[in-house]
Protein backbone atom coordinates (compact mmCIF):
# COMPACT_ATOMS: atom_id res chain seq x y z
CA UNK A 1 0.00 0.00 0.00
CA UNK A 2 2.75 2.49 0.93
CA UNK A 3 4.58 1.51 -2.26
CA UNK A 4 1.41 2.27 -4.11
CA UNK A 5 1.21 5.61 -2.42
CA UNK A 6 4.79 6.51 -3.22
CA UNK A 7 4.17 5.53 -6.81
CA UNK A 8 1.04 7.65 -6.88
CA UNK A 9 2.76 10.63 -5.30
CA UNK A 10 5.66 10.36 -7.73
CA UNK A 11 3.28 10.25 -10.64
CA UNK A 12 1.46 13.29 -9.27
CA UNK A 13 4.73 15.15 -8.82
CA UNK A 14 5.80 14.38 -12.37
CA UNK A 15 2.40 15.42 -13.64
CA UNK A 16 2.47 18.62 -11.62
CA UNK A 17 5.93 19.53 -12.88
CA UNK A 18 4.72 19.14 -16.43
CA UNK A 19 1.71 21.28 -15.66
CA UNK A 20 3.82 23.90 -13.94
CA UNK A 21 6.36 24.17 -16.69
CA UNK A 22 3.45 24.53 -19.06
CA UNK A 23 2.10 27.52 -17.16
CA UNK A 24 5.47 28.99 -16.27
CA UNK A 25 4.83 31.83 -18.63
CA UNK A 26 1.61 32.80 -16.81
CA UNK A 27 3.34 34.57 -13.93
CA UNK A 28 1.03 36.98 -12.18
CA UNK A 29 2.76 38.90 -9.44
CA UNK A 30 3.37 36.67 -6.47
CA UNK A 31 1.56 33.65 -7.79
CA UNK A 32 2.34 31.05 -10.35
CA UNK A 33 -0.90 29.45 -11.40
CA UNK A 34 -2.51 29.82 -8.00
CA UNK A 35 0.52 28.74 -5.98
CA UNK A 36 2.08 31.47 -3.90
CA UNK A 37 5.67 32.24 -4.91
CA UNK A 38 6.30 35.41 -2.90
CA UNK A 39 8.17 35.75 0.38
CA UNK A 40 5.84 38.01 2.43
CA UNK A 41 4.94 35.48 5.08
CA UNK A 42 7.98 33.23 4.86
CA UNK A 43 10.17 32.88 7.91
CA UNK A 44 13.56 31.23 7.99
CA UNK A 45 14.76 28.24 9.97
CA UNK A 46 18.30 29.30 9.19
CA UNK A 47 19.87 31.57 6.65
CA UNK A 48 18.50 30.61 3.25
CA UNK A 49 16.20 27.89 4.64
CA UNK A 50 12.56 28.97 4.22
CA UNK A 51 10.14 27.45 6.73
CA UNK A 52 7.15 26.88 4.44
CA UNK A 53 5.91 25.52 1.15
CA UNK A 54 2.74 26.44 -0.74
CA UNK A 55 0.08 24.48 -2.56
CA UNK A 56 -2.39 24.94 -5.38
CA UNK A 57 -6.14 24.99 -4.60
CA UNK A 58 -7.36 21.58 -3.45
CA UNK A 59 -3.92 20.11 -4.18
CA UNK A 60 -1.39 18.36 -2.02
CA UNK A 61 1.28 17.99 -4.68
CA UNK A 62 4.67 19.57 -4.01
CA UNK A 63 5.77 22.08 -6.63
CA UNK A 64 9.32 22.33 -7.93
CA UNK A 65 9.92 25.33 -5.65
CA UNK A 66 8.47 23.44 -2.67
CA UNK A 67 10.76 20.52 -3.25
CA UNK A 68 13.75 22.83 -3.43
CA UNK A 69 12.70 24.40 -0.11
CA UNK A 70 12.25 20.99 1.49
CA UNK A 71 15.65 19.81 0.27
CA UNK A 72 17.17 22.85 1.99
CA UNK A 73 15.24 21.98 5.14
CA UNK A 74 16.44 18.38 4.93
CA UNK A 75 20.06 19.36 4.64
CA UNK A 76 19.65 21.81 7.52
CA UNK A 77 18.00 19.07 9.60
CA UNK A 78 20.82 16.67 8.78
CA UNK A 79 23.32 19.21 10.10
CA UNK A 80 21.20 19.88 13.18
CA UNK A 81 20.39 16.35 14.15
CA UNK A 82 19.11 17.27 17.61
CA UNK A 83 16.32 19.41 16.25
CA UNK A 84 12.90 17.85 15.73
CA UNK A 85 10.17 19.53 13.74
CA UNK A 86 6.40 19.80 13.52
CA UNK A 87 4.91 20.18 10.09
CA UNK A 88 1.77 22.28 10.28
CA UNK A 89 -0.58 21.73 7.35
CA UNK A 90 -3.09 24.40 6.40
CA UNK A 91 -5.88 25.01 3.91
CA UNK A 92 -7.51 28.21 2.67
CA UNK A 93 -10.95 29.39 3.81
CA UNK A 94 -12.73 28.34 0.60
CA UNK A 95 -13.52 24.79 1.66
CA UNK A 96 -15.63 22.90 4.15
CA UNK A 97 -14.07 22.67 7.59
CA UNK A 98 -13.80 18.91 7.94
CA UNK A 99 -12.45 18.26 4.47
CA UNK A 100 -9.90 21.02 5.01
CA UNK A 101 -8.66 19.34 8.17
CA UNK A 102 -7.94 16.23 6.12
CA UNK A 103 -6.41 18.30 3.34
CA UNK A 104 -4.05 20.08 5.77
CA UNK A 105 -2.97 16.72 7.16
CA UNK A 106 -2.29 15.44 3.67
CA UNK A 107 -0.26 18.54 2.77
CA UNK A 108 1.90 18.29 5.87
CA UNK A 109 2.46 14.60 5.12
CA UNK A 110 3.46 15.36 1.55
CA UNK A 111 6.18 17.57 3.01
CA UNK A 112 7.07 14.94 5.61
CA UNK A 113 7.39 12.20 2.98
CA UNK A 114 9.72 14.40 0.99
CA UNK A 115 11.92 15.19 4.00
CA UNK A 116 12.08 11.45 4.73
CA UNK A 117 13.09 10.76 1.13
CA UNK A 118 16.03 13.06 1.83
CA UNK A 119 17.12 11.06 4.80
CA UNK A 120 15.32 12.67 7.73
CA UNK A 121 13.98 10.09 10.16
CA UNK A 122 10.21 10.06 10.54
CA UNK A 123 10.76 10.01 14.31
CA UNK A 124 12.02 13.57 14.16
CA UNK A 125 8.93 14.82 12.32
CA UNK A 126 5.45 15.17 13.69
CA UNK A 127 2.50 16.46 11.76
CA UNK A 128 -0.51 18.56 12.73
CA UNK A 129 -3.31 19.90 10.58
CA UNK A 130 -5.06 23.16 11.31
CA UNK A 131 -7.35 22.97 8.31
CA UNK A 132 -8.54 26.51 7.67
CA UNK A 133 -8.37 27.54 11.33
CA UNK A 134 -5.11 29.45 11.33
CA UNK A 135 -4.74 31.57 8.20
CA UNK A 136 -1.60 33.70 8.03
CA UNK A 137 -3.32 36.27 5.82
CA UNK A 138 -6.85 37.24 6.81
CA UNK A 139 -7.88 38.63 3.43
CA UNK A 140 -10.58 37.06 1.26
CA UNK A 141 -8.77 37.15 -2.06
CA UNK A 142 -6.81 34.72 -4.23
CA UNK A 143 -3.43 36.02 -3.08
CA UNK A 144 -4.32 35.67 0.60
CA UNK A 145 -5.69 32.17 0.00
CA UNK A 146 -2.49 31.17 -1.82
CA UNK A 147 -0.42 32.22 1.22
CA UNK A 148 -2.69 30.22 3.49
CA UNK A 149 -2.45 26.93 1.55
CA UNK A 150 0.79 25.91 3.17
CA UNK A 151 2.83 23.50 5.20
CA UNK A 152 5.04 25.19 7.75
CA UNK A 153 8.03 23.51 9.35
CA UNK A 154 8.33 24.56 12.97
CA UNK A 155 11.08 23.64 15.42
CA UNK A 156 9.66 21.35 18.08
CA UNK A 157 12.49 21.75 20.58
Amino acid sequence: MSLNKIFRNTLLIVFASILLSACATKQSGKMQGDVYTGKDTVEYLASGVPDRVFFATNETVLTTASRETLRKQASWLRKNSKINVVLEGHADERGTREYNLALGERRANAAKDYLMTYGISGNRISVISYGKERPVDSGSNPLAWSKNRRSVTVKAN
Partner: protein
Amino acid sequence: MKNFFYIYLTVIFLTFTNKSFALIEVDITRGNLNPLPMAVSPLSVEKESKDKFKDQLNLNDIGLEISKVIENNLRQSGLFNPLDQKAFLQKPNIAHVKPRFEDWALIKAQALITGEVKFANDRLRVEFRLWDILAGKEILALAFTTVPENWRRVGHIITDKVYERLTGEKGYFDTRIIYVAEEGLKTNRIKKLAIMDQDGFNTKYLTLGNELVLTPRFNPTNQMVTYLSYFKNLPRVYLLDIETGIQEVVGDFPGMTFAPRFSPDGKKIIMSFAKDGNSDIYTMDLDNRVVEKITNHPSIDTSPSYSPDGKFICFNSDRSGYQQIYVMRSDGSKVKRISFGNGLYGTPVWSPRGDLIAFTKLHKGKFYIGVMRTDGTGERLLTENYYQEAPSWSPNGRVLIFYRETKSDSKGKGFSAKLWSIDLTGYNEKMVNTETDASDPSWSSLLSD
Protein backbone atom coordinates in the same frame (compact mmCIF):
# COMPACT_ATOMS: atom_id res chain seq x y z
CA MET B 1 -30.48 19.93 42.30
CA LYS B 2 -31.25 21.74 39.16
CA ASN B 3 -30.97 19.39 36.29
CA PHE B 4 -29.91 21.01 33.09
CA PHE B 5 -31.48 18.54 30.77
CA TYR B 6 -34.04 16.62 32.73
CA ILE B 7 -37.02 18.81 33.06
CA TYR B 8 -40.18 17.01 33.83
CA LEU B 9 -43.27 18.71 32.68
CA THR B 10 -46.30 17.07 34.07
CA VAL B 11 -49.35 17.13 31.93
CA ILE B 12 -52.13 17.78 34.39
CA PHE B 13 -55.16 17.49 32.24
CA LEU B 14 -56.17 17.21 28.67
CA THR B 15 -59.66 18.35 27.92
CA PHE B 16 -61.67 16.66 25.28
CA THR B 17 -60.49 17.78 21.90
CA ASN B 18 -62.16 16.97 18.69
CA LYS B 19 -59.40 16.71 16.12
CA SER B 20 -61.37 15.42 13.22
CA PHE B 21 -63.48 18.56 12.82
CA ALA B 22 -60.74 21.14 13.01
CA LEU B 23 -60.91 23.63 10.18
CA ILE B 24 -57.48 25.17 10.38
CA GLU B 25 -54.69 23.42 8.61
CA VAL B 26 -51.25 24.69 7.78
CA ASP B 27 -49.39 23.14 4.89
CA ILE B 28 -45.70 23.08 5.64
CA THR B 29 -44.60 21.23 2.56
CA ARG B 30 -44.35 24.32 0.40
CA GLY B 31 -43.18 27.86 0.87
CA ASN B 32 -45.80 29.70 2.83
CA LEU B 33 -46.34 33.20 1.54
CA ASN B 34 -49.56 33.63 3.49
CA PRO B 35 -48.72 32.80 7.08
CA LEU B 36 -51.75 31.98 9.22
CA PRO B 37 -52.94 35.03 11.21
CA MET B 38 -53.02 34.09 14.88
CA ALA B 39 -53.63 35.81 18.17
CA VAL B 40 -51.45 34.94 21.13
CA SER B 41 -53.18 36.47 24.12
CA PRO B 42 -50.95 37.33 27.07
CA LEU B 43 -51.38 34.50 29.55
CA SER B 44 -53.41 35.66 32.52
CA VAL B 45 -51.83 35.74 35.99
CA GLU B 46 -53.62 36.83 39.13
CA LYS B 47 -51.81 39.38 41.25
CA GLU B 48 -50.54 37.12 44.02
CA SER B 49 -48.85 34.73 41.59
CA LYS B 50 -47.56 37.60 39.51
CA ASP B 51 -45.78 39.08 42.52
CA LYS B 52 -44.24 35.73 43.45
CA PHE B 53 -42.78 35.32 39.97
CA LYS B 54 -41.65 38.91 40.00
CA ASP B 55 -39.63 38.20 43.15
CA GLN B 56 -38.22 34.93 41.89
CA LEU B 57 -37.59 35.60 38.21
CA ASN B 58 -37.48 39.37 38.01
CA LEU B 59 -40.26 39.39 35.43
CA ASN B 60 -42.92 42.06 35.62
CA ASP B 61 -45.57 39.93 33.99
CA ILE B 62 -44.68 36.29 33.43
CA GLY B 63 -47.89 35.69 31.47
CA LEU B 64 -46.98 38.38 28.97
CA GLU B 65 -43.39 37.13 28.74
CA ILE B 66 -44.42 33.54 27.98
CA SER B 67 -46.81 34.80 25.30
CA LYS B 68 -43.89 36.70 23.73
CA VAL B 69 -41.82 33.51 23.58
CA ILE B 70 -44.68 31.77 21.77
CA GLU B 71 -45.27 34.72 19.46
CA ASN B 72 -41.62 34.93 18.48
CA ASN B 73 -41.43 31.17 17.79
CA LEU B 74 -44.53 31.31 15.61
CA ARG B 75 -43.26 34.31 13.67
CA GLN B 76 -39.81 32.77 13.14
CA SER B 77 -41.36 29.60 11.75
CA GLY B 78 -42.66 31.63 8.83
CA LEU B 79 -45.91 29.68 8.91
CA PHE B 80 -47.79 31.92 11.31
CA ASN B 81 -48.42 35.60 11.58
CA PRO B 82 -48.97 36.59 15.23
CA LEU B 83 -51.15 39.68 15.38
CA ASP B 84 -50.35 42.79 17.40
CA GLN B 85 -51.52 42.33 20.98
CA LYS B 86 -52.64 46.00 21.07
CA ALA B 87 -55.53 45.09 18.77
CA PHE B 88 -56.91 42.52 21.22
CA LEU B 89 -60.26 43.44 22.72
CA GLN B 90 -60.73 40.75 25.33
CA LYS B 91 -58.94 40.54 28.65
CA PRO B 92 -56.61 37.54 28.93
CA ASN B 93 -58.44 35.97 31.88
CA ILE B 94 -61.83 36.19 30.20
CA ALA B 95 -60.56 35.08 26.79
CA HIS B 96 -59.07 31.99 28.40
CA VAL B 97 -62.42 30.92 29.79
CA LYS B 98 -64.73 31.94 26.98
CA PRO B 99 -63.40 33.84 24.00
CA ARG B 100 -65.78 36.10 22.09
CA PHE B 101 -65.07 34.58 18.70
CA GLU B 102 -66.58 37.55 16.79
CA ASP B 103 -64.06 39.92 18.38
CA TRP B 104 -61.13 37.72 17.36
CA ALA B 105 -62.56 37.17 13.89
CA LEU B 106 -62.84 40.94 13.53
CA ILE B 107 -59.07 41.36 13.80
CA LYS B 108 -58.72 38.50 11.29
CA ALA B 109 -57.29 35.95 13.72
CA GLN B 110 -57.94 32.39 12.61
CA ALA B 111 -56.57 30.80 15.74
CA LEU B 112 -56.18 32.01 19.30
CA ILE B 113 -53.90 30.91 22.10
CA THR B 114 -54.95 31.74 25.65
CA GLY B 115 -53.57 30.66 28.98
CA GLU B 116 -53.29 31.01 32.69
CA VAL B 117 -50.19 31.03 34.87
CA LYS B 118 -50.15 30.16 38.57
CA PHE B 119 -47.60 29.95 41.32
CA ALA B 120 -48.49 26.73 43.14
CA ASN B 121 -46.36 24.97 45.76
CA ASP B 122 -43.27 26.87 44.64
CA ARG B 123 -43.81 25.65 41.14
CA LEU B 124 -44.91 27.17 37.90
CA ARG B 125 -48.20 25.91 36.55
CA VAL B 126 -49.23 26.93 33.06
CA GLU B 127 -52.44 26.00 31.37
CA PHE B 128 -53.14 26.90 27.75
CA ARG B 129 -55.88 26.52 25.17
CA LEU B 130 -55.85 26.71 21.42
CA TRP B 131 -59.04 27.95 19.82
CA ASP B 132 -60.26 27.68 16.25
CA ILE B 133 -61.90 31.07 15.68
CA LEU B 134 -63.86 30.22 12.54
CA ALA B 135 -65.18 26.96 13.95
CA GLY B 136 -65.75 28.71 17.27
CA LYS B 137 -64.29 26.04 19.51
CA GLU B 138 -61.39 24.84 21.57
CA ILE B 139 -59.11 22.41 19.71
CA LEU B 140 -56.38 21.81 22.25
CA ALA B 141 -55.91 22.28 25.99
CA LEU B 142 -52.97 21.27 28.15
CA ALA B 143 -51.35 22.19 31.45
CA PHE B 144 -47.77 21.87 32.62
CA THR B 145 -46.04 22.14 35.96
CA THR B 146 -42.34 22.76 36.32
CA VAL B 147 -39.80 24.84 38.22
CA PRO B 148 -40.24 28.59 37.66
CA GLU B 149 -36.82 28.92 35.97
CA ASN B 150 -38.18 26.86 33.09
CA TRP B 151 -40.69 29.51 32.06
CA ARG B 152 -39.20 30.00 28.59
CA ARG B 153 -39.28 26.25 27.97
CA VAL B 154 -42.98 26.27 28.76
CA GLY B 155 -43.40 28.81 25.96
CA HIS B 156 -41.47 26.54 23.62
CA ILE B 157 -43.45 23.46 24.56
CA ILE B 158 -46.72 25.31 24.03
CA THR B 159 -45.47 26.36 20.58
CA ASP B 160 -44.57 22.75 19.78
CA LYS B 161 -48.05 21.57 20.77
CA VAL B 162 -49.74 24.30 18.73
CA TYR B 163 -47.47 23.67 15.73
CA GLU B 164 -48.19 19.95 15.88
CA ARG B 165 -51.93 20.50 16.20
CA LEU B 166 -52.04 22.88 13.24
CA THR B 167 -49.51 21.31 10.86
CA GLY B 168 -49.83 17.65 11.76
CA GLU B 169 -46.06 17.42 12.32
CA LYS B 170 -43.90 17.55 15.43
CA GLY B 171 -42.44 20.94 16.26
CA TYR B 172 -38.84 21.94 16.89
CA PHE B 173 -39.12 24.75 19.43
CA ASP B 174 -38.23 23.03 22.71
CA THR B 175 -34.74 22.36 21.40
CA ARG B 176 -31.22 23.64 21.81
CA ILE B 177 -28.40 24.47 19.46
CA ILE B 178 -24.82 23.63 20.26
CA TYR B 179 -22.31 25.68 18.30
CA VAL B 180 -18.89 27.23 18.30
CA ALA B 181 -18.77 30.80 19.59
CA GLU B 182 -16.05 32.79 17.85
CA GLU B 183 -14.15 35.93 18.75
CA GLY B 184 -11.01 37.76 17.81
CA LEU B 185 -8.78 38.06 14.80
CA LYS B 186 -9.29 35.75 11.88
CA THR B 187 -5.64 34.67 12.12
CA ASN B 188 -5.99 33.67 15.76
CA ARG B 189 -9.67 33.03 16.35
CA ILE B 190 -10.76 32.18 19.89
CA LYS B 191 -13.37 29.42 19.79
CA LYS B 192 -15.59 28.11 22.58
CA LEU B 193 -18.33 25.54 22.72
CA ALA B 194 -21.63 27.23 23.39
CA ILE B 195 -25.16 26.00 23.89
CA MET B 196 -28.37 28.01 23.64
CA ASP B 197 -32.10 27.62 23.25
CA GLN B 198 -33.26 27.40 19.66
CA ASP B 199 -34.42 31.04 19.83
CA GLY B 200 -31.01 32.32 20.94
CA PHE B 201 -31.73 32.69 24.66
CA ASN B 202 -30.03 31.08 27.67
CA THR B 203 -26.56 30.92 26.12
CA LYS B 204 -24.01 28.98 28.15
CA TYR B 205 -20.35 28.52 27.32
CA LEU B 206 -19.03 25.03 27.87
CA THR B 207 -15.33 25.64 27.26
CA LEU B 208 -13.14 28.62 28.10
CA GLY B 209 -11.49 29.23 24.76
CA ASN B 210 -8.01 28.10 25.81
CA GLU B 211 -7.90 25.60 23.00
CA LEU B 212 -9.41 25.46 19.55
CA VAL B 213 -12.69 23.51 19.43
CA LEU B 214 -14.72 22.58 16.36
CA THR B 215 -17.79 20.69 15.11
CA PRO B 216 -19.80 19.84 18.26
CA ARG B 217 -22.68 17.36 17.82
CA PHE B 218 -25.33 16.14 20.26
CA ASN B 219 -26.04 12.54 21.12
CA PRO B 220 -29.68 11.45 20.65
CA THR B 221 -30.60 12.24 24.27
CA ASN B 222 -28.87 15.64 24.15
CA GLN B 223 -26.81 14.98 27.28
CA MET B 224 -23.52 14.34 25.55
CA VAL B 225 -21.62 16.22 22.92
CA THR B 226 -18.85 14.96 20.69
CA TYR B 227 -16.48 17.50 19.18
CA LEU B 228 -12.94 18.15 18.04
CA SER B 229 -10.55 19.80 20.49
CA TYR B 230 -6.94 20.88 20.01
CA PHE B 231 -6.24 20.38 23.73
CA LYS B 232 -2.43 20.23 24.19
CA ASN B 233 -2.16 20.78 20.45
CA LEU B 234 -3.35 17.26 19.74
CA PRO B 235 -6.47 17.43 17.59
CA ARG B 236 -8.68 14.63 18.88
CA VAL B 237 -12.35 13.77 19.08
CA TYR B 238 -13.70 14.35 22.59
CA LEU B 239 -16.80 13.45 24.45
CA LEU B 240 -18.36 15.93 26.86
CA ASP B 241 -21.07 15.30 29.41
CA ILE B 242 -22.97 18.59 29.40
CA GLU B 243 -24.28 18.24 32.93
CA THR B 244 -21.14 17.16 34.72
CA GLY B 245 -18.70 18.94 32.43
CA ILE B 246 -16.53 15.79 32.31
CA GLN B 247 -14.55 15.47 29.08
CA GLU B 248 -12.67 12.52 27.67
CA VAL B 249 -10.76 11.67 24.54
CA VAL B 250 -12.54 9.18 22.30
CA GLY B 251 -10.30 6.22 21.59
CA ASP B 252 -6.54 5.93 21.51
CA PHE B 253 -5.63 6.93 17.98
CA PRO B 254 -2.02 7.76 17.08
CA GLY B 255 -3.01 10.84 15.10
CA MET B 256 -5.76 13.34 14.36
CA THR B 257 -9.37 12.22 14.79
CA PHE B 258 -12.06 14.59 13.56
CA ALA B 259 -15.54 14.97 12.05
CA PRO B 260 -17.34 13.06 14.83
CA ARG B 261 -21.03 12.23 15.08
CA PHE B 262 -23.10 9.84 17.16
CA SER B 263 -24.85 6.81 15.77
CA PRO B 264 -28.66 7.13 15.96
CA ASP B 265 -28.77 4.80 19.00
CA GLY B 266 -26.08 6.90 20.68
CA LYS B 267 -23.87 3.87 21.29
CA LYS B 268 -21.12 4.64 18.81
CA ILE B 269 -19.16 7.60 17.61
CA ILE B 270 -18.30 7.69 13.95
CA MET B 271 -15.38 9.89 12.88
CA SER B 272 -12.38 10.29 10.63
CA PHE B 273 -8.87 9.28 11.63
CA ALA B 274 -6.01 10.80 9.64
CA LYS B 275 -2.63 9.14 9.41
CA ASP B 276 0.22 9.49 6.92
CA GLY B 277 -1.84 11.74 4.69
CA ASN B 278 -4.82 9.44 4.52
CA SER B 279 -8.16 9.94 6.29
CA ASP B 280 -10.48 6.98 6.78
CA ILE B 281 -13.74 6.55 8.66
CA TYR B 282 -13.83 4.64 11.95
CA THR B 283 -16.39 3.91 14.62
CA MET B 284 -15.84 3.45 18.31
CA ASP B 285 -18.33 1.63 20.51
CA LEU B 286 -18.75 3.72 23.66
CA ASP B 287 -19.58 0.70 25.85
CA ASN B 288 -16.79 -1.72 25.00
CA ARG B 289 -14.41 0.75 23.30
CA VAL B 290 -14.07 -1.49 20.28
CA VAL B 291 -12.78 0.42 17.26
CA GLU B 292 -13.81 -0.56 13.77
CA LYS B 293 -12.40 0.68 10.50
CA ILE B 294 -15.26 1.40 8.11
CA THR B 295 -13.55 2.76 4.99
CA ASN B 296 -10.19 1.70 3.62
CA HIS B 297 -9.17 3.90 0.75
CA PRO B 298 -6.10 6.06 0.04
CA SER B 299 -8.34 9.10 -0.56
CA ILE B 300 -9.79 11.47 2.04
CA ASP B 301 -12.92 9.97 3.61
CA THR B 302 -14.62 12.26 6.10
CA SER B 303 -17.85 13.91 7.36
CA PRO B 304 -19.72 10.64 8.02
CA SER B 305 -23.40 10.77 9.01
CA TYR B 306 -25.69 7.82 9.76
CA SER B 307 -29.16 7.28 8.32
CA PRO B 308 -31.76 7.45 11.13
CA ASP B 309 -32.21 3.66 11.08
CA GLY B 310 -28.45 3.22 11.46
CA LYS B 311 -28.22 0.98 8.42
CA PHE B 312 -26.39 3.40 6.10
CA ILE B 313 -23.72 6.06 6.28
CA CYS B 314 -23.31 9.00 3.96
CA PHE B 315 -19.85 10.56 3.80
CA ASN B 316 -17.53 12.84 1.91
CA SER B 317 -14.69 11.45 -0.19
CA ASP B 318 -12.36 12.72 -2.88
CA ARG B 319 -11.70 9.24 -4.28
CA SER B 320 -13.00 10.39 -7.66
CA GLY B 321 -10.43 13.20 -7.62
CA TYR B 322 -12.64 15.80 -5.97
CA GLN B 323 -14.96 16.04 -2.97
CA GLN B 324 -18.17 14.13 -3.62
CA ILE B 325 -20.91 12.50 -1.53
CA TYR B 326 -21.05 8.74 -1.11
CA VAL B 327 -23.41 6.34 0.63
CA MET B 328 -22.46 2.92 2.00
CA ARG B 329 -23.89 0.29 4.30
CA SER B 330 -22.91 0.89 7.92
CA ASP B 331 -20.36 -1.94 7.76
CA GLY B 332 -18.56 -0.09 4.96
CA SER B 333 -19.76 -2.29 2.13
CA LYS B 334 -21.54 -1.25 -1.07
CA VAL B 335 -19.98 2.19 -1.41
CA LYS B 336 -21.83 4.23 -3.99
CA ARG B 337 -21.25 7.77 -5.19
CA ILE B 338 -24.48 9.79 -5.18
CA SER B 339 -23.46 13.36 -6.12
CA PHE B 340 -22.91 13.95 -9.81
CA GLY B 341 -23.78 17.61 -10.37
CA ASN B 342 -21.27 20.28 -11.32
CA GLY B 343 -18.99 21.39 -8.51
CA LEU B 344 -17.72 19.96 -5.23
CA TYR B 345 -19.94 18.47 -2.55
CA GLY B 346 -19.25 18.26 1.18
CA THR B 347 -20.75 17.88 4.68
CA PRO B 348 -23.52 15.39 3.86
CA VAL B 349 -25.98 14.94 6.71
CA TRP B 350 -28.88 12.54 6.72
CA SER B 351 -32.34 13.95 7.43
CA PRO B 352 -34.09 12.70 10.60
CA ARG B 353 -36.98 11.65 8.33
CA GLY B 354 -34.56 9.47 6.37
CA ASP B 355 -35.51 10.58 2.90
CA LEU B 356 -33.02 13.37 2.19
CA ILE B 357 -29.37 14.25 2.55
CA ALA B 358 -28.44 17.89 3.12
CA PHE B 359 -25.06 19.08 1.88
CA THR B 360 -22.76 21.98 1.10
CA LYS B 361 -21.91 22.54 -2.54
CA LEU B 362 -19.10 24.64 -3.97
CA HIS B 363 -19.53 25.69 -7.57
CA LYS B 364 -17.88 28.53 -9.48
CA GLY B 365 -16.77 30.31 -6.33
CA LYS B 366 -20.19 30.20 -4.62
CA PHE B 367 -21.33 28.05 -1.73
CA TYR B 368 -24.76 26.47 -1.61
CA ILE B 369 -26.77 24.59 0.98
CA GLY B 370 -28.89 21.97 -0.72
CA VAL B 371 -30.69 18.67 -0.36
CA MET B 372 -30.89 15.55 -2.48
CA ARG B 373 -32.60 12.20 -2.15
CA THR B 374 -30.48 9.46 -0.65
CA ASP B 375 -29.87 7.99 -4.11
CA GLY B 376 -28.60 11.38 -5.32
CA THR B 377 -31.63 12.29 -7.40
CA GLY B 378 -33.75 15.40 -6.95
CA GLU B 379 -30.93 17.79 -6.05
CA ARG B 380 -32.35 21.09 -4.85
CA LEU B 381 -30.24 24.10 -3.86
CA LEU B 382 -31.88 26.15 -1.11
CA THR B 383 -29.51 29.08 -0.71
CA GLU B 384 -26.47 30.58 -2.41
CA ASN B 385 -23.84 32.76 -0.76
CA TYR B 386 -20.21 33.81 -0.67
CA TYR B 387 -19.45 31.23 2.01
CA GLN B 388 -21.72 28.92 3.97
CA GLU B 389 -21.55 25.32 5.04
CA ALA B 390 -22.37 22.60 7.56
CA PRO B 391 -26.17 22.24 7.59
CA SER B 392 -27.82 20.56 10.58
CA TRP B 393 -31.46 19.40 10.57
CA SER B 394 -34.21 20.46 12.94
CA PRO B 395 -35.56 17.33 14.67
CA ASN B 396 -38.67 17.33 12.47
CA GLY B 397 -36.59 17.58 9.29
CA ARG B 398 -38.26 20.80 8.13
CA VAL B 399 -35.58 23.39 8.84
CA LEU B 400 -31.81 23.51 8.34
CA ILE B 401 -29.39 25.56 10.41
CA PHE B 402 -25.91 26.31 9.03
CA TYR B 403 -23.24 28.99 9.28
CA ARG B 404 -22.26 31.72 6.89
CA GLU B 405 -19.09 33.77 6.68
CA THR B 406 -18.68 37.15 5.03
CA LYS B 407 -15.84 38.27 2.83
CA SER B 408 -13.09 40.29 4.46
CA ASP B 409 -10.90 42.97 2.95
CA SER B 410 -7.14 42.57 2.66
CA LYS B 411 -6.74 43.52 6.33
CA GLY B 412 -9.32 41.00 7.47
CA LYS B 413 -11.97 43.67 8.15
CA GLY B 414 -15.60 42.90 7.39
CA PHE B 415 -15.32 39.30 8.43
CA SER B 416 -18.15 37.74 10.39
CA ALA B 417 -19.50 34.26 11.01
CA LYS B 418 -23.18 33.86 11.85
CA LEU B 419 -25.77 31.11 12.15
CA TRP B 420 -28.62 31.07 9.65
CA SER B 421 -31.66 28.90 9.18
CA ILE B 422 -33.76 28.10 6.16
CA ASP B 423 -36.85 25.97 5.57
CA LEU B 424 -36.56 22.87 3.47
CA THR B 425 -38.84 24.70 1.04
CA GLY B 426 -36.08 27.26 0.40
CA TYR B 427 -38.17 29.99 2.05
CA ASN B 428 -37.86 31.75 5.38
CA GLU B 429 -34.11 32.30 5.41
CA LYS B 430 -33.17 33.98 8.70
CA MET B 431 -30.17 34.85 10.77
CA VAL B 432 -30.21 33.13 14.16
CA ASN B 433 -29.27 35.47 17.02
CA THR B 434 -26.11 34.62 18.91
CA GLU B 435 -24.21 36.67 21.50
CA THR B 436 -20.97 36.36 19.54
CA ASP B 437 -19.94 35.27 16.07
CA ALA B 438 -20.85 31.63 15.61
CA SER B 439 -20.25 28.55 13.46
CA ASP B 440 -20.71 24.77 13.34
CA PRO B 441 -24.28 24.62 14.66
CA SER B 442 -25.86 21.33 15.63
CA TRP B 443 -29.54 21.02 16.44
CA SER B 444 -30.68 18.89 19.39
CA SER B 445 -33.67 16.58 19.27
CA LEU B 446 -36.87 17.64 21.07
CA LEU B 447 -36.06 17.94 24.77
CA SER B 448 -39.56 16.92 25.83
CA ASP B 449 -41.39 14.63 23.55
